[in-house]
């Protein structure tokens, strides 16, 4: 009953100065809109970077010979997966896995040469594991028995002035530390958003690479894709137990820079949240202080009539809460409308070159996370209410006789 009265007073008081109220509602709405949208874009961008990096031969988990991650040369090779490791990989959480040969090499056309990573893959095993099966834009993908076929990135092909059907020579170091070279024919050209991949890799079949480098059945790495990249601890532990002496690393361990970038993105988001909130809370506190100051006599009157100081405090806080709630409702509606409008992504092709450098695709797809939306709303609502405590406390402290006689 008293709550209804306080709510009625708070709501009606709010609209005594419509323009002032509308202005602060707009400020709150814009603040929340910017927080939700910016968070969705930042998360979308970060998600794309992580996804691209995972598809860029990283996978969710990698297994190597010790030392390979620091020095990825042929000396750091490993035997093919043991029965124990194969059993561990036969896990419902594992959606794909494959072994690869991956060593430094030089690729030479008739005109140019370039340093690359020679990647020997199991063409079928790479499906669902890396970008390469879906990235071929000219020619065809590798077949399992493609002894002399090679996939090259579009940019590298341009640099080497080579192309589909042309012959290139790969030179590397074999297991005996001797120079190994072999001619391959370009059967496909790939194009990808993965940063640097078009110039960094050339792909042949694993068997062809093993033969060229005299590796026998040995490989450089084993990559694993799972159902959820955020839940890798148990699987990683099982794989470590099944592959003693090998280096089992999650994507986060394999790409620490990406994890740092994600953390920085998160911090930048929180800084933005703080800036928006500070700007908003100044407006809010100022509005409430003005409202309390203008209503000094009225507050004195309701206290004289028997309203408790704590009820005066609650009334001013309710005003603040209602103001924030209206602003939040409008801000969230704006943000959702905007997100629905750009749900297919924002075309950044004008900046594609620069974006690809950091692993972001030409189309940035926003990603809404409940924690960001909840966080933005709670931040505004809870901290906004806390900021409103000061004007509310001032109102509650009025001495009725002084408030009633104030000019």
């Amino acid at each position, binding site marked *: *009953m*008293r709550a*209804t*009265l306080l709510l*009625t*007073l708070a709501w*009606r*008081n709010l609209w*005594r100065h419509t323009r002032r109220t509308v202005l602060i509602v707009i400020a709150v709405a814009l603040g929340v809109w910017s927080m939700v949208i910016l968070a969705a874009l930042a998360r979308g961008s970060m998600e794309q970077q992580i996804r691209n990096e995972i598809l860029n031969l990283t996978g969710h988990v990698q297994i190597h010979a010790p030392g390979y991650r620091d020095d990825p040369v042929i000396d750091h090779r490993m035997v093919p997966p043991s029965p124990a490791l194969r059993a561990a990989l036969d896990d419902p959480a594992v959606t794909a896995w494959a072994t690869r040969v991956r060593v430094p090499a030089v690729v030479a056309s008739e005109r140019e040469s370039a340093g690359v990573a020679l990647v020997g893959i199991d063409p079928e095993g790479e499906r669902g594991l890396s970008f390469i099966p879906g990235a071929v834009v000219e020619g065809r993908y590798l077949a399992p028995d493609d002894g002399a076929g090679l996939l090259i990135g579009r940019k590298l092909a341009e640099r080497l002035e080579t192309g589909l059907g042309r012959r290139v020579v790969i030179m590397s170091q074999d297991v005996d530390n001797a120079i190994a070279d072999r001619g391959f024919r370009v059967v496909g050209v790939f194009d990808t958003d993965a940063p640097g991949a078009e110039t960094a890799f050339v792909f042949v079949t694993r068997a062809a690479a093993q033969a060229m480098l005299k590796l026998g059945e040995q490989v450089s790495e084993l990559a694993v894709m799972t159902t959820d990249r955020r839940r890798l601890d148990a699987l990683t532990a099982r794989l470590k137990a099944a592959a003693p002496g090998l280096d089992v690393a999650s994507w986060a361990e394999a790409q620490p820079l990406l994890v740092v970038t994600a953390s920085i993105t998160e911090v930048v988001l929180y800084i933005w949240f703080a800036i928006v909130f500070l700007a908003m809370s100044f407006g809010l506190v100022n509005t409430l202080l003005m409202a309390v100051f203008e209503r000094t*006599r*009225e507050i004195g*009157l*309701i*206290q*004289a*009539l*028997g*309203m*408790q*100081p*704590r009820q005066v405090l609650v009334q001013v806080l309710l005003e603040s809460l209602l103001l924030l709630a209206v602003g939040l409702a409008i801000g969230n509606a704006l943000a959702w409308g905007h997100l629905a409008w750009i749900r297919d992504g924002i075309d950044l092709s004008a900046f594609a070159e620069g974006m690809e450098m950091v692993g972001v695709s030409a189309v940035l797809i926003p990603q809404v996370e409940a924690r960001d939306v909840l966080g933005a709303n709670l931040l505004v609502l809870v901290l906004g209410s806390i900021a409103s405590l000061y004007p509310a406390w001032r109102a509650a402290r009025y*001495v*009725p*006789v002084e408030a*009633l006689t104030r000019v």
Partner: protein
Amino acid sequence: MPATVVCRKLCKVYRQDSVAVPALTDVDLVIPKQDFACLSGPSGSGKSTLLNLIGGLDRPSSGEVEVDGRRIDRMRKGELAELRLHHIGFVFQAYNLIPVLTARENVEFVMQMQGVPARERAAKSRQILSEVGLDGLEDRRPGELSGGQQQRVAVARAIVSEPSLVLADEPTANLDSTNAEALMQLLRHMNDEHRVTFLFSTHDKLVMDHSKRLIKLHDGRIVGDERRR
């Protein structure tokens, strides 16, 4: 007759910078139940100060105040608010009503704070507004009422919850003589019908003429106390 208000050696001293300005000095006063008393005196004589101390709106520097047998000079802020809510009605000179509430809501304000059920509140407010001659104006906000009508709403609010004491500070100050006369007749009627104790402060001869008792103040002291009729 038992007393509604008792003041003993009541003093109030205001401080202006480092100078002490006495507003009330050793005031002894008893207001019996159902009295219709008026505090008069020149400006600065201490009328409003005394009214504020009795109403628990301000605290005495020394002395005692009892309302309905309760010592209020030692009460905490919350206790004073509770006392005002349940035992005292107020009519001020101006700024009497809450501008965002209608006449009916203003009348119901105190009852709603007291936790009176909605149906009972509605019945009482309808009856009292009718009694003060405001039929048909229940849903108007203060800004849509004349000064006289606003004071009537304030009177209705002050007595609707049947307090033991109504304090009215210069209730006719902003009214023309016709409205002032009507208001005083109304208050006297309430005093007779509802057995409410009234204590006014005023400069207005009309209010004094309607009072049963005239208490004169000068320089913060009671200098006269006469029963009239």
